[in-house]
């Protein structure tokens, strides 16, 4: 049996909107990935532990509240701290362009802002997953 790419789609923080995350989850499913969706209002600690238990290859974070400069890097730090050093991190949501370089420095490989076709996310994951 060939390996399936496993992706955790997670919403850290307090915003209550997951339409975008669900659209992305569906697109990733249609691309043949196994998508683990954990629902709204997750703490970085919960996301990191779910990533460990599910042994995912990719963690996709979605956030609309503006707390990304704090929460995204925190998730990366916690996941790596569990010994999962080969996970690919991507982010999405309402993220100002000015914030993107700092997120990339913190280990988020790519940030997808509103209007990105879902096929671009699929292509990026296929090209960069380890």
């Amino acid at each position, binding site marked *: *049996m*060939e*390996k*399936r790419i496993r992706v955790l789609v997670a919403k850290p923080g307090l915003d209550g909107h997951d339409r975008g995350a669900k659209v992305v*989850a*569906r697109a*990733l*499913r*249609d*691309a*043949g*990935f*196994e*998508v*683990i*969706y*954990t*629902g709204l209002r*997750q703490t970085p*600690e*919960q996301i990191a*532990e*779910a990533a*460990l*238990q*599910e*042994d995912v290859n990719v963690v996709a974070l979605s956030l609309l509240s503006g707390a990304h400069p704090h929460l995204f890097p925190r998730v990366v730090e916690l996941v790596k701290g*569990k*010994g*999962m050093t080969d996970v690919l991190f991507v982010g999405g949501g309402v993220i100002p362009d000015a914030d993107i370089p700092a997120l990339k420095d913190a280990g988020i490989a790519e940030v997808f802002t509103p209007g990105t076709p879902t096929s671009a996310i699929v292509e990026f994951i296929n090209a960069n997953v380890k």
Partner: protein
Amino acid sequence: MDIANELLAGSRLALSRAITAVENEYDTAVGIMQKLYPHTGRAHVIGITGPPGAGKSTLTDKLAKEYRRQGKTVGIVAVDPTSPFSGGAILGDRIRMNELTLDEGVFIRSMGTRGSLGGLSRKTAETVKILDASGKDVIFIETVGVGQSEVDIVKAADTTLVVLVPGLGDDIQAIKAGVLEIGDVFAINKADRDGVDRLNIELEMMLDLNQDMVDWRPPIKRTVASQNQGINELVATLEEHIKHLEETGKLALRRKQRTKNELLAMIEEQLGRYILRNINESGQFEQLVTSVQQRQRDPYSVVNEILKDRLK
């Protein structure tokens, strides 16, 4: 790293990686399972099955919490369907179990069915063994939402809990074969809804018709999982069932039957693979397919010939 040794020493990462190795059939998988096997056979394995939307995930969450309150460690394997078209899956059972995520006495793993049709994935039984070897006292297997014939769970679990909800169908549904025959315990969930008494009566009548319940009649328990109602009673009933199996010697019988099934399945799989590799390498297989398709040969004698040549 030596995954099996690290798992036995308590590493959660090793536990997770062991499941991945088995699920993806990595070369390391057999070695890991060989080392873990002597450490299995201790956990009480509880299958949770029922139609989509019956509340299996929510009930599993609440049952796990009650077992944790009693000081037991818990493993959960949650199976969701894989798309037959894309091969992808959305595994969403964790949504109902988020409060368990940070409890170190709990480990939850989601799996896609990956083409398996019996309500489980092909690697569910081995995943249960891995969790068992890691020392979990109770392991829940949550099946995909089932219809009437996805009954693989019986072969994998010590105790099968069938979860039903009021309002799904009339009493004809209750005498159908399949899922309703496999319950060791029944839970009528969402029992605050209309129709619960009627469903209860229909189930009792169905059980009245069963001839083979000499010493265990499956109890029917009412729960409202979302309100945490009936959970303690349900756990007590599940415990009674495993105690019954132990005292009557049926647990050993069930597990022996399971071991037999697993050995036969492994022989079948390895033999199939060996022959497939062998006929592909010989290069004759395509010719044989063509000759059968064009009715020059019949498939029965071709299969006999293939097996005779290779199994001496």
